[in-house]
């Protein structure tokens, strides 16, 4: 099958790159000594990781009583943070799987880093339910295994157990997908390295040679993994939303939750990808590979999903009123005008109002606006989860048990500490592996390089097949 490349297609690789330039540019960050900025940022991340370890040790030592959860509000910052991190962990698989199926070529610039981000975000997310269990040394009880207690099994009807399966499957499948994509690029780094580094990369690149048959299988594997990861990524946040939606708590048991949570997850995930990419492309000098066109494409996804989330918020309010069910009506009245009104308005402003500025092309293509708004959206999505969890629980059926919740220093430290954990992992990743998929960028060079398409394309490039407008590309 071949497909004509329209002259209006965006340039995705700038700077008149040859295949060798791509290898050089993308391998260099792993080869030279870390820059001063990297060392400073890494030290800060490590300090926050230390804070995380301290706060978790404190929690395990003293017990969950060191958090401010109470009889009424038994899910607070812990589950808020869990859902927040899981949401962030959705962009990687979305970019690599769904955009692969849709043949969106701009994914190649950002998929590797976004997938890595997914894996680290899921690691951060996992910390919260695990330590919320209290007796964390018995955490393995959540898995069904033959045991000497009967055997007594887990409850397969519980959404919390579905979550265990969904998140552990998501984590391991994302890891396979990411690593299999990484193997050819690790081989590229291996073939440039000498001595001890070469030995290490020989181990991690699994003996990759680049044989045509291996590439064929590799592409099949990537495509089928993308095919099964697409429903997987949608299922994960659907199941996270089941934690709430299958309960009988007004404000939680709404059927809109699965699509609303998935849209919110993509929204926050892309915001986090933007935060990281804007920094990464600058620090590692990858502006020619992660171009303004990439950033604009992601901003388009952000404005779309942000608007979906906004529609979901309004639908919730409408349905609460339309249901005629006073408990539901009270839950939503309380959500907007109750004791946590500031969280609701923060959420509305950050998630629904602020991304609307991306309708303007100028703002969509501005680095500073993108960075600023990605932070705002991350904050807004955190508020969303807090609103859903804490506000709803604070005002339950019995007014005598109504309560208020604010976190202790331990809860705050754990949350801030997971951000340290996340950046600690991400920054190590930028040192040991190419942050942009080398082989995949080379494969799209002739359809997305600025010497082949776009305003600066060279009309006579030696080969007949490089005519920009009438060029045919094999797509089979």
């Amino acid at each position, binding site marked *: 099958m071949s497909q004509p490349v329209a002259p209006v297609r965006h340039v995705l690789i700038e700077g008149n790159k040859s295949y060798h330039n791509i290898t050089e540019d993308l391998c260099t960050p792993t080869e030279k000594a870390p820059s001063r900025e990297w060392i400073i940022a890494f030290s800060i991340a490590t300090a926050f990781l230390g804070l995380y370890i301290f706060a978790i040790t404190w929690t395990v030592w003293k017990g969950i009583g060191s958090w401010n959860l109470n009889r009424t509000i038994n899910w607070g910052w812990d589950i808020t943070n869990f859902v927040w991190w899981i949401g962030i962990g959705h962009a990687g698989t979305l970019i690599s799987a769904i955009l692969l199926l849709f043949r969106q070529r701009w994914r190649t610039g950002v998929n590797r880093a976004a997938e890595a981000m997914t894996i680290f975000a899921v690691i951060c997310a996992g910390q919260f339910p695990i330590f919320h269990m209290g007796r964390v040394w018995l955490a393995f009880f959540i898995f069904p295994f033959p045991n000497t207690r009967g055997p007594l099994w887990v409850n*397969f009807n519980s959404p919390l157990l*579905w979550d265990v399966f969904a998140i552990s499957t998501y984590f391991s*499948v994302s890891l396979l997908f990411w690593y299999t994509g990484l193997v050819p690029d690790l081989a590229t780094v291996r073939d440039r390295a000498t001595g001890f580094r070469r030995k290490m990369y020989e181990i991690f690149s699994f003996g990759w*040679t680049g044989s045509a048959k291996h590439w064929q299988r590799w592409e099949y594997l990537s495509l089928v993994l993308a095919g099964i*990861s697409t429903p997987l990524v949608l299922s994960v946040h659907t199941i996270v939303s089941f934690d709430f939606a299958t309960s009988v708590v007004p404000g939680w048991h709404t059927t809109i939750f699965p699509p609303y949570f998935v849209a919110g997850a993509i929204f926050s995930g892309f915001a986090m990808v933007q935060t990281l990419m804007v920094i990464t492309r600058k620090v590692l000098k990858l502006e020619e590979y992660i171009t303004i066109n990439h950033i604009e494409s992601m901003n388009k996804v952000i404005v779309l999903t942000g608007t979906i989330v906004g529609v979901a918020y309004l639908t919730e309010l409408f349905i609460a009123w339309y249901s005629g069910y006073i408990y539901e009506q009270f839950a939503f009245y309380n959500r907007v005008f109750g004791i946590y009104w500031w969280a609701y308005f923060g959420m509305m402003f950050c998630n629904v109002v602020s991304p609307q500025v991306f309708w303007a092309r100028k703002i969509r293509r501005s680095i500073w606006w993108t960075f600023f708004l990605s932070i705002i959206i991350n904050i807004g999505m955190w508020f969303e989860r807090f609103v859903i969890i804490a506000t709803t629980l604070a005002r339950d059926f019995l007014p005598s048990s109504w309560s208020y919740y604010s976190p202790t220093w331990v809860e705050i430290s754990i949350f801030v500490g997971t951000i340290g954990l996340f950046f600690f992992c991400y920054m190590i990743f930028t040192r040991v592996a190419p942050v942009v998929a080398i082989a995949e960028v*080379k494969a799209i060079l002739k359809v997305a390089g600025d010497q082949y398409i776009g305003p600066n394309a060279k009309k006579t490039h030696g080969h007949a097949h490089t005519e920009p407008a009438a060029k045919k590309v094999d797509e089979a």
Partner: protein
Amino acid sequence: MAAESKKVLYGLYNDEEDLKGAVRTANSDHLDIMDVFTPFPVHGLDPILGLKESRLHILGFIYGATGALFGFLAMTWIFTSDWPIVFGGKPFWSVPAFIPITFEMTVLFSAWGMTITFYTVCGMWPGVKAKTLDNRITDDKFCIAFDVTDAPEGDVSKLQGFFSKTGAAEVNVKTM
């Protein structure tokens, strides 16, 4: 795999279009290509090399079906015969509640099964030493390799002629 060393004659090309042209020439000259190595997947190369379609996706389906059956039957056995428990007055065999885990097991088995199969059939595992002909193959060179271990002198010079005719940038011999 044979343990004795192999003598390989290989040519490096600078562009994937040159490579594809050379493979077509090799086909019409009835030359027996041992393998082709590229830095990225070159589309349109498989049919002219005569590579059969991979069957990995069929295995993926079989693994997935196995996972679905395993997950569903395990839950069925546990909740109907091994240790039935009433949850909220629901039936022991509450099929709708089993769907999420059945789905996750499908994906888990399919992904792991296919990935393990992929690495096994490619002979790739941690610590496997790559049989690399040239370090630049993972960078920007496209390679056609011929096995010339037992080839008579005439055949080798015929292959040399083929490489110079098709525009190979370099031709080398390596024993591996």
